[in-house]
């Protein structure tokens, strides 16, 4: 579904991605992992159209999308839940969700169906549709951002570090929500630093270091990989 080939990207004069290639198939749950500053977020930004790639190709359902403006990429069916969430803080939960379906704003039936779907997925919002997004707690904000990303019924959702800044219990709740989504058939590309729990969650993973893909494979294989174990996992396993 998504095919990234030899992607290069830079900020001003500083190149941050070299020959990044990855693909995500329909219905898959794929993770992009690696240390801080490896270029994970930049990869997602390039796919979503927030950063213009300077080389390589990005294909989505057979169409080249590299370099298109973000709102057009969103219209093609890619949602991006950023690290900062980018919620509309001074609007209600409901309005945030409704704007999530902006691409299909004329389809009232779709909006209603999506709202019901999100409220079913995240029951915390059921009684609080009128609350301002800025007054939600950290975990709720992440869920709202994911919910907003799902409102347009995207074909692919990109999620950037959902565990960032959350208490371990809430991280589990967010991961649980992602697992649930995957089971409902949503295709997900997840960026995470939390290597161990991420690999227990996803089908496949790519490891990004210094702007290059250094490893890729099924999550089971990656968990067994000696290099990955030594670098990221240490000896103790924390079960999820």
């Amino acid at each position, binding site marked *: 579904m998504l095919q990234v080939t030899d992607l290069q990207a830079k900020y001003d004069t500083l190149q941050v991605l070299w020959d990044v290639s990855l693909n995500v198939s329909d219905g898959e749950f794929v993770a992009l992992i690696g240390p801080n500053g490896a270029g994970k977020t930049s990869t997602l930004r390039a796919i*979503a159209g*927030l950063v213009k790639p300077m080389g390589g190709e990005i294909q989505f359902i057979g169409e080249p999308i590299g370099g298109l*403006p*973000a*709102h057009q990429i*969103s*219209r093609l069916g890619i*949602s*991006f839940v*950023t690290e*900062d*969430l*980018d*919620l*509309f*803080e*001074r*609007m209600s939960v409901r*309005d945030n969700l*409704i*704007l*999530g379906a*902006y*691409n299909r*704003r004329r389809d009232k039936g779709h909006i209603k169906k999506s709202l019901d779907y999100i409220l079913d997925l995240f029951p915390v919002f059921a009684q609080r549709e009128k609350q301002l997004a800025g007054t939600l707690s950290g975990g709720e904000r992440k869920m709202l951002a994911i919910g*907003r*990303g799902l*409102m*347009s019924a995207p074909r692919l959702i990109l999620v950037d570090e959902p565990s960032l800044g959350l208490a371990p219990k809430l991280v589990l709740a967010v991961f649980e929500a992602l697992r649930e989504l995957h089971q409902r058939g949503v295709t997900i590309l997840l960026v995470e630093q939390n290597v161990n729990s991420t690999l227990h969650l996803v089908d496949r993973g790519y490891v990004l270091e210094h702007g290059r893909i250094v490893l890729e494979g099924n999550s089971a294989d990656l968990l067994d990989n000696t290099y990955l174990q030594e670098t990221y996992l240490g000896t103790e396993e924390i079960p999820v």
Partner: protein
Amino acid sequence: MMAGGLALLFGVMNICNFAHGELYIIGAYLAYFAHVTFGLNPILAILVATLGSFIAGVLVEKVFFSTLRKRSKTDWVMNAFLVTLGISVMFQNGAQLVWGVKYRGITQYWEGNIQITPRMAIAADRAIAFLISIGAIILLWWFMRKTTLGKAIRAVSQNERGAMLVGIDLNRIHTLTFALGSMLAGLGGASLLSLIPAYPFAGVKPNIRSWFVVTVVGLGNVGGSIAGGFIVGLLESLAYYFLGQGWQDVASLVMLMVLLLLKPSGLFGSEVKGVLER
């Protein structure tokens, strides 16, 4: 109402529009020509002027700000402000060149007075202008709160990246916002034509006054600017009545100074996007 348009522009687009007064005169001129030259009835003339200033707003945004946005990445607030000053000077002198310095006014749209108490009456004209502005504000409020397009405008003002990611085309929203702001200014100019005639520099005073209101309530606060308009208007009338003619500006300026000293973010202090962040 004018202040409302200004607040909208500032809140959403981060433009300190000093050419707002010129959009006000476009409305006034259009209403004059429609009403006097083409003999349209007042309602139609005001509608034509409103629509015309909306279109003028689209043109100004496309020609100046769209172009500027592509080129200027840093210092947007300052650059946009300078551009509005330039537009203002160009327009004032352009209007002088084309239409001359002649005052083009009308004595009244509608005849008659409305008796409020046996001893107090207001001209029907003023009453109708007032009703028009209230109506426009209610419509604007409804549009911004209840329609998807209005919500999209607010979304852009709150988080541009979030707005882009849900599929909102920023360029379209920027143009629409500027046109809406221009439309409000033009509507103001058109409905007050009988009080303030159209001439090239007629926009200066309303412009300063709406800046004043916007500063009092807090930059970028659309709802507050309505209340602010009343506050400033009442204060000036009181000063006029109790202190005498000429004192009304003193009173309002003193209030502004005191306010800026005590509460720099304005009476209803919404956080100022842009200026504080950059």
